[in-house]
């Protein structure tokens, strides 16, 4: 992976060319869930429905496990993976909470209190873990 300046931002995967190439089929699977008939077919037989897409074993695994951060690592984009969340009946805020490792109550309370602060979240170097 070519090092890019935004790789220094903690807890963030930028959907760049590299990620988009990796995740094309994963994202197009998510896009297919815009249609109700496809949502039903997926719900009826998740693994069988995924066979329609040229996914890697790792991509199948994170999708079936609903590993939302894993999907991003495998090339997913949040606006696409959120369509899988919607199919599961989850809101944007619910999957955001999951991705941050918080309960939904704690996450909602953090947002009401002004959100996640920028201090300490700018760079991995600043945090000493880069």
């Amino acid at each position, binding site marked *: 992976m070519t090092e890019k300046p935004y790789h220094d931002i903690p807890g963030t995967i930028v959907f*760049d060319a590299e990620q988009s190439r990796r995740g094309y089929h994963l994202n197009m699977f998510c896009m297919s869930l815009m249609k109700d008939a496809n949502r039903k077919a997926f719900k009826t037989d998740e693994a069988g429905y995924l066979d329609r897409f040229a996914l890697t074993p790792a991509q199948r695994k994170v999708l079936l496990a609903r590993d939302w951060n894993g999907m991003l690592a495998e090339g997913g984009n949040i606006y696409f993976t959120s369509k899988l969340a919607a199919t599961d009946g989850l809101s944007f805020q619910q999957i955001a909470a999951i991705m941050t490792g918080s309960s939904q109550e704690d996450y909602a309370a953090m947002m009401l209190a002004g959100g996640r602060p920028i201090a300490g979240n700018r*760079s991995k170097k600043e945090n000493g873990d880069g």
Partner: protein
Amino acid sequence: MADIVAGIATSHVPAIGAALDNGKAGTPYWRPLFDGYKPSQDYLKALNPDVVILVYNDHASAFSLEIIPTFALGCAAEFAPADEGWGPRPVPIVQGHPELAWHIAQSVILDEFDLTIVNKMDVDHGLTVPLSLLFGQVKEWPCPVIPLAVNVVQYPPPTGHRCYMLGKALRRAVQSCDKDLKVVIFGTGGMSHQLQGPRAGLINPDFDRAFLDNLTADPQKLAAMPHIDYLREAGSEGIELVMWLIMRGALDDAVREVRRFYHVPASNTAVGHIILENRG
């Protein structure tokens, strides 16, 4: 002569549309937000524009990864609200302005901005939430709308400088139309927010306030800001703010700030709103 007389920026958070559509606008969570837009609705009603040019981004609704236009201008007669997975929002069909839209497309392409021309496009919350915030819950939108969709999903989006210069080209295009049209331009998206990964929920009010200040006073400084600063300081989805620079570029260099509103949170997002008028 046609001209762009004012610019309006606003966030376009989907949860705002859902709150309105599900009758939750009066709840303690949402009421302060909707109250913040009431004076702007009155302002726009009094201004009574003939056309709105609405700069927004599609969120994997009309455009998937099959085709990713950087700038796409809606030239159709109408645009239907998109089904984003829960059925289309119960809002009016958006009427376009094909005559002005095509005029703009031709003008800016010859002015070296190679737009994609779109004759069929559903419009998602990125376009309909700003209309709801500024026009309220209406049976018909009060004027035609020309959608300008900007890619900010696939990195990299256009630079802030490119957006600012496109705004200037849009102004020239509108001014070269011999119809007597009063045009208002919307720039939407932002403000600071991140929807993905362990850093989701990021809000940076200092960045947002400085952005609002500079939007009025020093847009050239904002136009020079590199993408890494948006990503780092405003969150991975905060980079939507480059779209506000298209709106700003379409106004005079010197503008008057009519009003602004800032509110945290709407779901995962800091909501920012500003109205600018040409000083002339």
